[in-house]
Protein backbone atom coordinates (compact mmCIF):
# COMPACT_ATOMS: atom_id res chain seq x y z
CA UNK A 1 0.00 0.00 0.00
CA UNK A 2 1.18 3.51 -0.84
CA UNK A 3 -0.35 6.62 0.79
CA UNK A 4 0.38 10.30 0.22
CA UNK A 5 -0.97 12.56 2.98
CA UNK A 6 -0.98 16.28 2.15
CA UNK A 7 2.37 16.10 0.41
CA UNK A 8 4.12 19.24 -0.78
CA UNK A 9 7.39 19.26 -2.66
CA UNK A 10 9.22 22.46 -3.37
CA UNK A 11 12.64 22.28 -5.06
CA UNK A 12 15.50 24.53 -3.87
CA UNK A 13 15.01 26.77 -6.92
CA UNK A 14 11.49 27.53 -5.67
CA UNK A 15 9.62 25.35 -8.17
CA UNK A 16 6.61 23.71 -6.54
CA UNK A 17 6.38 20.24 -8.06
CA UNK A 18 3.61 18.89 -5.84
CA UNK A 19 0.94 20.83 -3.97
CA UNK A 20 -1.13 19.16 -1.29
CA UNK A 21 -1.25 15.76 -2.95
CA UNK A 22 -3.21 13.04 -1.15
CA UNK A 23 -4.17 9.55 -2.37
CA UNK A 24 -3.94 5.89 -1.49
CA UNK A 25 -2.93 3.02 -3.75
CA UNK A 26 -4.00 -0.34 -2.36
CA UNK A 27 -1.97 -3.54 -2.46
CA UNK A 28 -2.32 -5.39 -5.75
CA UNK A 29 -3.72 -2.37 -7.59
CA UNK A 30 -2.48 -1.17 -10.99
CA UNK A 31 -2.60 2.63 -11.10
CA UNK A 32 -1.67 4.96 -13.93
CA UNK A 33 -0.32 8.44 -13.17
CA UNK A 34 -1.17 10.87 -15.95
CA UNK A 35 -0.27 14.48 -16.67
CA UNK A 36 1.75 16.53 -19.10
CA UNK A 37 5.49 17.01 -18.76
CA UNK A 38 6.41 18.91 -15.61
CA UNK A 39 3.12 18.09 -13.88
CA UNK A 40 4.97 16.29 -11.08
CA UNK A 41 4.68 12.63 -12.13
CA UNK A 42 8.40 11.86 -11.78
CA UNK A 43 8.60 13.76 -8.50
CA UNK A 44 5.75 11.70 -7.13
CA UNK A 45 7.47 8.43 -8.00
CA UNK A 46 10.81 9.64 -6.63
CA UNK A 47 9.16 10.50 -3.33
CA UNK A 48 7.92 6.90 -3.01
CA UNK A 49 11.47 5.55 -3.33
CA UNK A 50 12.93 8.30 -1.09
CA UNK A 51 15.05 9.54 -3.97
CA UNK A 52 13.53 12.93 -3.17
CA UNK A 53 12.23 13.99 0.26
CA UNK A 54 8.92 15.90 0.61
CA UNK A 55 8.93 19.50 1.85
CA UNK A 56 5.97 18.64 4.06
CA UNK A 57 3.36 15.93 4.44
CA UNK A 58 3.71 12.20 4.98
CA UNK A 59 4.31 9.28 2.64
CA UNK A 60 3.55 5.74 3.74
CA UNK A 61 4.93 2.76 1.82
CA UNK A 62 4.04 -0.74 3.09
CA UNK A 63 3.23 0.68 6.57
CA UNK A 64 6.56 2.52 6.77
CA UNK A 65 6.68 6.26 7.09
CA UNK A 66 9.19 7.19 4.41
CA UNK A 67 9.86 10.61 5.98
CA UNK A 68 10.92 9.01 9.23
CA UNK A 69 13.44 6.66 7.61
CA UNK A 70 17.04 7.28 8.53
CA UNK A 71 19.57 7.55 5.73
CA UNK A 72 21.00 4.09 6.44
CA UNK A 73 17.59 2.38 6.26
CA UNK A 74 16.59 3.85 2.89
CA UNK A 75 18.39 1.04 0.98
CA UNK A 76 16.06 -1.45 2.64
CA UNK A 77 12.97 0.51 1.56
CA UNK A 78 14.29 0.52 -2.00
CA UNK A 79 14.87 -3.22 -1.89
CA UNK A 80 11.13 -3.77 -1.41
CA UNK A 81 10.47 -1.79 -4.60
CA UNK A 82 11.08 -2.49 -8.25
CA UNK A 83 12.09 0.74 -9.99
CA UNK A 84 12.05 1.49 -13.71
CA UNK A 85 13.60 4.87 -14.43
CA UNK A 86 12.73 7.32 -17.14
CA UNK A 87 16.38 7.49 -18.22
CA UNK A 88 16.69 3.70 -17.85
CA UNK A 89 20.06 3.80 -16.05
CA UNK A 90 21.38 0.73 -17.84
CA UNK A 91 25.08 -0.05 -17.28
CA UNK A 92 26.64 -0.31 -20.72
CA UNK A 93 29.93 -1.81 -19.56
CA UNK A 94 28.39 -5.21 -18.80
CA UNK A 95 26.13 -7.79 -20.41
CA UNK A 96 22.35 -7.96 -20.15
CA UNK A 97 22.78 -10.82 -17.70
CA UNK A 98 25.14 -8.80 -15.45
CA UNK A 99 22.77 -5.82 -15.48
CA UNK A 100 19.92 -7.94 -14.18
CA UNK A 101 22.28 -9.62 -11.71
CA UNK A 102 23.09 -6.36 -9.93
CA UNK A 103 20.04 -6.20 -7.59
CA UNK A 104 20.72 -9.76 -6.46
CA UNK A 105 24.42 -9.05 -5.87
CA UNK A 106 23.45 -6.19 -3.63
CA UNK A 107 21.29 -8.54 -1.60
CA UNK A 108 24.10 -11.10 -1.32
CA UNK A 109 22.46 -13.91 -3.29
CA UNK A 110 24.59 -16.99 -3.96
CA UNK A 111 25.70 -17.06 -7.56
CA UNK A 112 23.76 -20.19 -8.51
CA UNK A 113 20.40 -19.15 -7.08
CA UNK A 114 20.92 -15.69 -8.51
CA UNK A 115 21.68 -17.00 -12.00
CA UNK A 116 18.48 -19.02 -12.19
CA UNK A 117 16.47 -16.03 -10.97
CA UNK A 118 18.09 -13.75 -13.54
CA UNK A 119 17.19 -16.21 -16.29
CA UNK A 120 13.62 -16.45 -15.02
CA UNK A 121 13.28 -12.65 -15.12
CA UNK A 122 14.82 -12.43 -18.60
CA UNK A 123 12.51 -15.18 -19.79
CA UNK A 124 9.51 -13.31 -18.44
CA UNK A 125 10.31 -10.22 -20.53
CA UNK A 126 11.42 -12.28 -23.55
CA UNK A 127 15.11 -11.43 -23.45
CA UNK A 128 16.53 -14.82 -22.50
CA UNK A 129 18.33 -15.39 -25.79
CA UNK A 130 20.05 -11.98 -25.39
CA UNK A 131 21.55 -12.64 -21.95
CA UNK A 132 25.14 -12.41 -23.20
CA UNK A 133 24.54 -9.40 -25.41
CA UNK A 134 25.75 -5.94 -24.46
CA UNK A 135 22.98 -3.33 -23.96
CA UNK A 136 24.34 -1.16 -26.75
CA UNK A 137 23.19 -3.82 -29.26
CA UNK A 138 19.60 -3.84 -27.97
CA UNK A 139 16.67 -2.04 -29.59
CA UNK A 140 14.70 0.59 -27.65
CA UNK A 141 11.99 -1.90 -26.72
CA UNK A 142 14.56 -4.48 -25.63
CA UNK A 143 16.34 -1.94 -23.42
CA UNK A 144 13.03 -1.19 -21.75
CA UNK A 145 12.48 -4.92 -21.20
CA UNK A 146 15.94 -5.13 -19.69
CA UNK A 147 14.96 -2.41 -17.23
CA UNK A 148 11.81 -4.31 -16.31
CA UNK A 149 13.77 -7.53 -15.79
CA UNK A 150 16.18 -5.71 -13.49
CA UNK A 151 13.27 -4.20 -11.55
CA UNK A 152 11.48 -7.50 -10.97
CA UNK A 153 14.36 -9.96 -10.57
CA UNK A 154 14.24 -9.70 -6.76
CA UNK A 155 10.44 -10.18 -6.78
CA UNK A 156 9.35 -6.87 -5.27
CA UNK A 157 5.81 -6.34 -4.02
CA UNK A 158 5.63 -2.87 -5.58
CA UNK A 159 6.66 -2.02 -9.14
CA UNK A 160 7.13 1.63 -10.08
CA UNK A 161 7.71 2.68 -13.69
CA UNK A 162 8.40 6.21 -14.97
CA UNK A 163 7.37 6.62 -18.63
CA UNK A 164 8.18 3.01 -19.58
CA UNK A 165 6.77 3.39 -23.10
CA UNK A 166 8.30 6.75 -23.97
CA UNK A 167 9.97 6.75 -27.41
CA UNK A 168 8.54 3.34 -28.27
CA UNK A 169 6.20 2.72 -31.19
CA UNK A 170 2.67 1.55 -30.46
CA UNK A 171 3.31 -2.18 -30.88
CA UNK A 172 6.28 -2.15 -28.53
CA UNK A 173 4.33 -0.04 -26.05
CA UNK A 174 1.48 -2.52 -26.07
CA UNK A 175 3.79 -5.49 -25.39
CA UNK A 176 5.51 -3.62 -22.56
CA UNK A 177 2.11 -2.90 -21.03
CA UNK A 178 1.31 -6.61 -21.34
CA UNK A 179 4.34 -7.38 -19.18
CA UNK A 180 3.09 -4.95 -16.50
CA UNK A 181 -0.40 -6.45 -16.61
CA UNK A 182 1.03 -9.92 -16.07
CA UNK A 183 2.79 -8.72 -12.91
CA UNK A 184 -0.40 -7.06 -11.76
CA UNK A 185 -2.25 -10.33 -12.26
CA UNK A 186 0.08 -12.16 -9.84
CA UNK A 187 -0.62 -9.59 -7.12
CA UNK A 188 2.17 -7.01 -7.55
CA UNK A 189 1.20 -3.39 -6.90
CA UNK A 190 2.04 -1.49 -10.11
CA UNK A 191 2.34 2.30 -10.49
CA UNK A 192 3.03 3.60 -14.00
CA UNK A 193 3.58 7.25 -14.86
CA UNK A 194 2.77 7.93 -18.50
CA UNK A 195 1.43 10.48 -20.93
CA UNK A 196 0.82 7.82 -23.60
CA UNK A 197 -2.84 8.29 -24.58
CA UNK A 198 -3.14 4.76 -25.96
CA UNK A 199 -2.40 3.42 -22.51
CA UNK A 200 -4.56 5.97 -20.71
CA UNK A 201 -7.56 5.15 -22.90
CA UNK A 202 -7.60 1.65 -21.43
CA UNK A 203 -10.28 2.29 -18.81
CA UNK A 204 -9.71 -0.89 -16.79
CA UNK A 205 -7.37 0.94 -14.42
CA UNK A 206 -7.58 3.84 -12.03
CA UNK A 207 -5.88 7.00 -13.25
CA UNK A 208 -4.35 9.66 -10.98
CA UNK A 209 -4.10 12.86 -13.02
CA UNK A 210 -1.66 15.57 -12.03
CA UNK A 211 -1.97 19.13 -13.30
CA UNK A 212 0.72 21.64 -12.30
CA UNK A 213 1.46 19.67 -9.14
CA UNK A 214 -2.15 19.25 -8.09
CA UNK A 215 -4.19 16.08 -8.16
CA UNK A 216 -7.20 16.45 -10.48
CA UNK A 217 -10.27 14.61 -9.25
Amino acid sequence: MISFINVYKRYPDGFEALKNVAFTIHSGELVLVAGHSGAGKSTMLKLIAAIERPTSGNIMVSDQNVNALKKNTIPFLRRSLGLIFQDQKILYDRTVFANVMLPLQIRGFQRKTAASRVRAALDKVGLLEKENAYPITLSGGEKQRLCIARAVVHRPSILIADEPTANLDADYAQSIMEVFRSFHQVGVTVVIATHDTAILNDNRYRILTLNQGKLVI
Partner: protein
Amino acid sequence: MNIWLFQHWQALSQTFKKLVNAPLSSLLSIIVIGIAFSLPLGIYTLLGNLQTISGDTVNTPQLSLFLKLNASHADIENINSQLEKFPSIASFQFISKEIALQQLQQESSLNDIASNLIRNPLPDAFIINIQQISPDELENIRATIKKWPEVEHVQVDTDWARRLDALLRLGQLAVLMLAVLLSLALVIVVFNTIRLQILTKRDEIEVSKLIGATDSFIRRPFLYFGAIQGMGGAIAAWLLIALSIQAINESLVELAQLYASDFHLNHLSLQDSLSLLIFSALLGWLGARLSVAQHLSQIEPK
Protein backbone atom coordinates in the same frame (compact mmCIF):
# COMPACT_ATOMS: atom_id res chain seq x y z
CA MET B 1 26.68 -14.25 8.48
CA ASN B 2 27.03 -16.45 5.43
CA ILE B 3 25.78 -13.66 3.19
CA TRP B 4 28.16 -11.26 4.87
CA LEU B 5 31.16 -13.52 4.23
CA PHE B 6 30.01 -14.13 0.67
CA GLN B 7 29.73 -10.41 -0.02
CA HIS B 8 33.23 -9.84 1.33
CA TRP B 9 34.53 -12.61 -0.86
CA GLN B 10 32.72 -11.05 -3.80
CA ALA B 11 34.23 -7.62 -3.12
CA LEU B 12 37.69 -9.17 -2.83
CA SER B 13 37.42 -11.08 -6.10
CA GLN B 14 36.04 -7.95 -7.78
CA THR B 15 39.13 -6.09 -6.57
CA PHE B 16 41.50 -8.65 -8.01
CA LYS B 17 39.59 -8.59 -11.29
CA LYS B 18 39.97 -4.83 -11.36
CA LEU B 19 43.73 -5.14 -10.78
CA VAL B 20 44.09 -7.72 -13.51
CA ASN B 21 41.92 -5.80 -15.96
CA ALA B 22 44.07 -2.69 -15.64
CA PRO B 23 47.51 -4.24 -15.16
CA LEU B 24 49.55 -1.25 -16.27
CA SER B 25 47.94 1.39 -14.09
CA SER B 26 47.77 -0.99 -11.11
CA LEU B 27 51.42 -1.86 -11.54
CA LEU B 28 52.44 1.77 -11.90
CA SER B 29 50.78 2.92 -8.72
CA ILE B 30 52.10 -0.11 -6.85
CA ILE B 31 55.62 0.66 -8.06
CA VAL B 32 55.24 4.32 -7.08
CA ILE B 33 54.27 3.26 -3.58
CA GLY B 34 57.06 0.68 -3.59
CA ILE B 35 59.73 3.21 -4.49
CA ALA B 36 58.46 5.70 -1.96
CA PHE B 37 58.52 3.03 0.73
CA SER B 38 61.90 1.58 -0.22
CA LEU B 39 63.65 4.80 0.80
CA PRO B 40 62.91 4.77 4.55
CA LEU B 41 62.85 0.98 4.50
CA GLY B 42 66.32 0.82 2.94
CA ILE B 43 67.79 3.25 5.45
CA TYR B 44 66.08 1.37 8.26
CA THR B 45 67.60 -1.91 7.08
CA LEU B 46 71.03 -0.34 6.77
CA LEU B 47 70.82 1.17 10.25
CA GLY B 48 69.67 -2.15 11.65
CA ASN B 49 72.73 -3.80 10.15
CA LEU B 50 75.13 -1.17 11.46
CA GLN B 51 73.52 -1.40 14.85
CA THR B 52 74.37 -5.08 15.14
CA ILE B 53 78.03 -4.04 14.96
CA SER B 54 77.88 -1.14 17.34
CA GLY B 55 75.30 -2.77 19.58
CA ASP B 56 77.47 -5.72 20.56
CA THR B 57 80.41 -3.49 21.22
CA VAL B 58 78.54 -0.87 23.17
CA ASN B 59 77.00 -3.45 25.43
CA THR B 60 80.39 -4.81 26.48
CA PRO B 61 82.70 -1.84 26.91
CA GLN B 62 86.37 -2.62 26.73
CA LEU B 63 89.39 -0.89 28.24
CA SER B 64 92.98 -1.36 27.25
CA LEU B 65 95.48 -0.75 30.03
CA PHE B 66 99.07 -0.21 28.92
CA LEU B 67 101.86 -0.47 31.47
CA LYS B 68 105.03 1.55 31.42
CA LEU B 69 107.80 -0.06 29.44
CA ASN B 70 109.93 -0.55 32.53
CA ALA B 71 107.19 -2.26 34.57
CA SER B 72 108.41 -5.29 36.52
CA HIS B 73 106.79 -8.67 37.18
CA ALA B 74 105.88 -7.48 40.64
CA ASP B 75 104.06 -4.49 39.20
CA ILE B 76 102.12 -6.78 36.89
CA GLU B 77 101.18 -9.05 39.77
CA ASN B 78 100.10 -6.03 41.76
CA ILE B 79 97.81 -4.73 39.03
CA ASN B 80 96.48 -8.21 38.37
CA SER B 81 95.38 -8.57 42.00
CA GLN B 82 93.90 -5.07 42.05
CA LEU B 83 91.87 -5.81 38.94
CA GLU B 84 90.56 -9.03 40.53
CA LYS B 85 89.21 -7.01 43.45
CA PHE B 86 87.81 -4.26 41.28
CA PRO B 87 83.97 -4.09 41.06
CA SER B 88 82.09 -4.13 37.72
CA ILE B 89 84.92 -5.78 35.82
CA ALA B 90 83.55 -8.81 33.96
CA SER B 91 86.83 -10.33 32.88
CA PHE B 92 90.34 -9.33 31.97
CA GLN B 93 93.22 -10.77 30.04
CA PHE B 94 96.92 -10.11 30.38
CA ILE B 95 98.89 -9.70 27.16
CA SER B 96 102.62 -9.64 27.73
CA LYS B 97 104.85 -7.64 25.47
CA GLU B 98 106.25 -10.90 24.02
CA ILE B 99 102.82 -12.15 23.00
CA ALA B 100 101.92 -8.74 21.58
CA LEU B 101 105.03 -8.85 19.41
CA GLN B 102 104.20 -12.34 18.23
CA GLN B 103 100.74 -11.19 17.24
CA LEU B 104 102.23 -8.28 15.39
CA GLN B 105 104.53 -10.60 13.49
CA GLN B 106 101.66 -12.85 12.53
CA GLU B 107 99.93 -10.00 10.77
CA SER B 108 101.24 -10.64 7.27
CA SER B 109 101.26 -7.05 6.17
CA LEU B 110 103.16 -5.90 9.24
CA ASN B 111 105.58 -8.83 9.20
CA ASP B 112 108.41 -6.88 7.58
CA ILE B 113 108.26 -4.08 10.08
CA ALA B 114 108.06 -6.40 13.04
CA SER B 115 111.06 -8.53 12.00
CA ASN B 116 113.18 -5.42 11.46
CA LEU B 117 112.69 -4.20 15.01
CA ILE B 118 115.85 -4.23 17.09
CA ARG B 119 114.05 -4.47 20.39
CA ASN B 120 110.43 -4.97 21.43
CA PRO B 121 108.78 -1.55 21.61
CA LEU B 122 105.48 -2.87 22.92
CA PRO B 123 104.33 -2.55 26.51
CA ASP B 124 102.65 -5.17 28.66
CA ALA B 125 98.92 -4.72 28.53
CA PHE B 126 95.65 -5.77 30.08
CA ILE B 127 92.45 -5.98 28.10
CA ILE B 128 89.54 -5.44 30.46
CA ASN B 129 85.91 -6.25 29.73
CA ILE B 130 83.55 -4.16 31.82
CA GLN B 131 80.03 -5.10 32.78
CA GLN B 132 77.31 -3.08 31.16
CA ILE B 133 77.46 0.36 32.79
CA SER B 134 76.77 3.96 31.94
CA PRO B 135 79.37 6.01 30.06
CA ASP B 136 79.97 8.12 33.21
CA GLU B 137 80.83 5.11 35.30
CA LEU B 138 83.08 3.86 32.57
CA GLU B 139 84.91 7.17 32.63
CA ASN B 140 85.31 6.88 36.44
CA ILE B 141 86.86 3.46 36.14
CA ARG B 142 89.22 4.74 33.50
CA ALA B 143 90.30 7.63 35.70
CA THR B 144 90.82 5.37 38.75
CA ILE B 145 92.93 2.87 36.92
CA LYS B 146 94.92 5.63 35.28
CA LYS B 147 96.18 6.72 38.74
CA TRP B 148 97.65 3.33 39.59
CA PRO B 149 101.48 3.24 39.61
CA GLU B 150 103.24 1.91 36.54
CA VAL B 151 100.13 2.52 34.38
CA GLU B 152 101.12 4.46 31.31
CA HIS B 153 97.79 4.79 29.52
CA VAL B 154 94.19 3.60 29.75
CA GLN B 155 92.15 3.66 26.59
CA VAL B 156 88.43 3.11 26.15
CA ASP B 157 88.39 0.91 23.05
CA THR B 158 84.70 1.26 22.47
CA ASP B 159 84.47 5.00 22.11
CA TRP B 160 83.98 4.73 18.36
CA ALA B 161 81.10 2.35 18.92
CA ARG B 162 79.41 4.77 21.30
CA ARG B 163 79.72 7.53 18.76
CA LEU B 164 78.40 5.28 16.03
CA ASP B 165 75.53 4.29 18.26
CA ALA B 166 74.60 7.90 18.91
CA LEU B 167 74.80 8.57 15.20
CA LEU B 168 72.54 5.63 14.48
CA ARG B 169 69.96 6.95 16.92
CA LEU B 170 69.96 10.18 15.00
CA GLY B 171 69.57 8.17 11.82
CA GLN B 172 66.61 6.33 13.28
CA LEU B 173 64.90 9.60 14.02
CA ALA B 174 65.46 10.66 10.43
CA VAL B 175 64.02 7.35 9.21
CA LEU B 176 60.99 7.83 11.41
CA MET B 177 60.36 11.29 10.00
CA LEU B 178 60.86 10.04 6.46
CA ALA B 179 58.52 7.12 7.09
CA VAL B 180 55.80 9.43 8.40
CA LEU B 181 56.10 11.67 5.34
CA LEU B 182 56.06 8.80 2.86
CA SER B 183 53.19 7.09 4.66
CA LEU B 184 51.29 10.28 4.07
CA ALA B 185 52.31 10.02 0.42
CA LEU B 186 50.94 6.48 0.26
CA VAL B 187 47.63 7.62 1.73
CA ILE B 188 47.47 10.39 -0.87
CA VAL B 189 48.33 8.07 -3.77
CA VAL B 190 45.60 5.63 -2.76
CA PHE B 191 43.19 8.49 -2.10
CA ASN B 192 43.68 9.69 -5.64
CA THR B 193 43.45 6.26 -7.31
CA ILE B 194 40.20 5.57 -5.49
CA ARG B 195 38.90 9.02 -6.44
CA LEU B 196 39.50 8.21 -10.11
CA GLN B 197 37.88 4.81 -9.71
CA ILE B 198 34.82 6.32 -8.11
CA LEU B 199 34.55 8.81 -10.96
CA THR B 200 34.70 6.07 -13.60
CA LYS B 201 32.20 3.96 -11.67
CA ARG B 202 29.83 6.83 -11.12
CA ASP B 203 26.98 5.21 -13.08
CA GLU B 204 27.32 1.89 -11.33
CA ILE B 205 27.37 3.55 -7.92
CA GLU B 206 24.32 5.65 -8.75
CA VAL B 207 22.32 2.68 -10.01
CA SER B 208 23.41 0.56 -7.05
CA LYS B 209 22.20 3.24 -4.65
CA LEU B 210 18.89 3.47 -6.49
CA ILE B 211 18.20 -0.21 -6.26
CA GLY B 212 18.99 -0.54 -2.60
CA ALA B 213 22.72 -0.99 -2.09
CA THR B 214 23.90 -0.01 1.37
CA ASP B 215 26.82 2.38 1.73
CA SER B 216 29.03 -0.37 3.11
CA PHE B 217 28.28 -2.54 0.08
CA ILE B 218 29.39 0.25 -2.23
CA ARG B 219 32.43 1.11 -0.09
CA ARG B 220 33.72 -2.43 0.32
CA PRO B 221 35.45 -3.05 -3.05
CA PHE B 222 37.20 0.31 -2.84
CA LEU B 223 38.49 -0.40 0.67
CA TYR B 224 39.79 -3.78 -0.41
CA PHE B 225 41.41 -2.16 -3.41
CA GLY B 226 43.17 0.41 -1.22
CA ALA B 227 44.42 -2.21 1.22
CA ILE B 228 45.67 -4.48 -1.55
CA GLN B 229 47.34 -1.60 -3.30
CA GLY B 230 49.13 -0.66 -0.08
CA MET B 231 50.19 -4.25 0.40
CA GLY B 232 51.39 -4.48 -3.20
CA GLY B 233 53.47 -1.36 -2.61
CA ALA B 234 55.01 -2.92 0.49
CA ILE B 235 55.87 -6.07 -1.43
CA ALA B 236 57.43 -3.98 -4.20
CA ALA B 237 59.51 -2.07 -1.63
CA TRP B 238 60.54 -5.33 0.03
CA LEU B 239 61.69 -6.77 -3.28
CA LEU B 240 63.58 -3.58 -4.14
CA ILE B 241 65.44 -3.78 -0.84
CA ALA B 242 66.09 -7.50 -1.29
CA LEU B 243 67.60 -6.89 -4.72
CA SER B 244 69.72 -3.97 -3.46
CA ILE B 245 71.02 -5.97 -0.52
CA GLN B 246 71.88 -8.83 -2.83
CA ALA B 247 73.81 -6.45 -5.08
CA ILE B 248 75.55 -4.67 -2.22
CA ASN B 249 76.50 -7.92 -0.51
CA GLU B 250 78.28 -9.14 -3.62
CA SER B 251 80.64 -6.19 -3.66
CA LEU B 252 80.74 -6.05 0.12
CA VAL B 253 82.26 -9.52 0.29
CA GLU B 254 85.42 -8.26 -1.40
CA LEU B 255 85.62 -5.21 0.81
CA ALA B 256 85.02 -7.25 3.95
CA GLN B 257 87.76 -9.71 2.95
CA LEU B 258 90.23 -6.87 2.78
CA TYR B 259 89.38 -6.09 6.39
CA ALA B 260 89.40 -9.79 7.30
CA SER B 261 85.75 -9.61 8.33
CA ASP B 262 82.73 -11.62 7.25
CA PHE B 263 80.48 -8.58 7.50
CA HIS B 264 77.43 -8.65 5.24
CA LEU B 265 74.02 -6.97 5.17
CA ASN B 266 71.00 -8.86 6.47
CA HIS B 267 67.54 -8.42 4.98
CA LEU B 268 64.54 -7.33 7.05
CA SER B 269 63.50 -9.82 9.69
CA LEU B 270 60.29 -11.80 9.26
CA GLN B 271 58.67 -9.73 11.98
CA ASP B 272 59.66 -6.45 10.34
CA SER B 273 58.45 -7.69 6.96
CA LEU B 274 55.08 -8.69 8.36
CA SER B 275 54.67 -5.38 10.20
CA LEU B 276 55.51 -3.58 6.96
CA LEU B 277 52.84 -5.56 5.11
CA ILE B 278 50.15 -4.95 7.72
CA PHE B 279 51.06 -1.30 8.20
CA SER B 280 50.95 -0.49 4.49
CA ALA B 281 47.69 -2.40 4.06
CA LEU B 282 46.23 -0.25 6.86
CA LEU B 283 47.52 2.93 5.22
CA GLY B 284 46.01 1.88 1.88
CA TRP B 285 42.73 1.15 3.60
CA LEU B 286 42.85 4.56 5.29
CA GLY B 287 43.49 6.35 1.98
CA ALA B 288 40.57 4.51 0.38
CA ARG B 289 38.31 5.18 3.37
CA LEU B 290 39.03 8.91 3.29
CA SER B 291 38.54 9.04 -0.48
CA VAL B 292 35.26 7.11 -0.32
CA ALA B 293 33.97 9.31 2.48
CA GLN B 294 34.87 12.37 0.45
CA HIS B 295 33.56 11.33 -2.96
CA LEU B 296 30.78 8.81 -2.47
CA SER B 297 28.43 11.23 -0.77
CA GLN B 298 28.70 13.48 -3.83
CA ILE B 299 27.02 10.79 -5.93
CA GLU B 300 23.39 11.04 -4.92
CA PRO B 301 20.87 9.67 -7.38
CA LYS B 302 18.55 12.25 -8.87
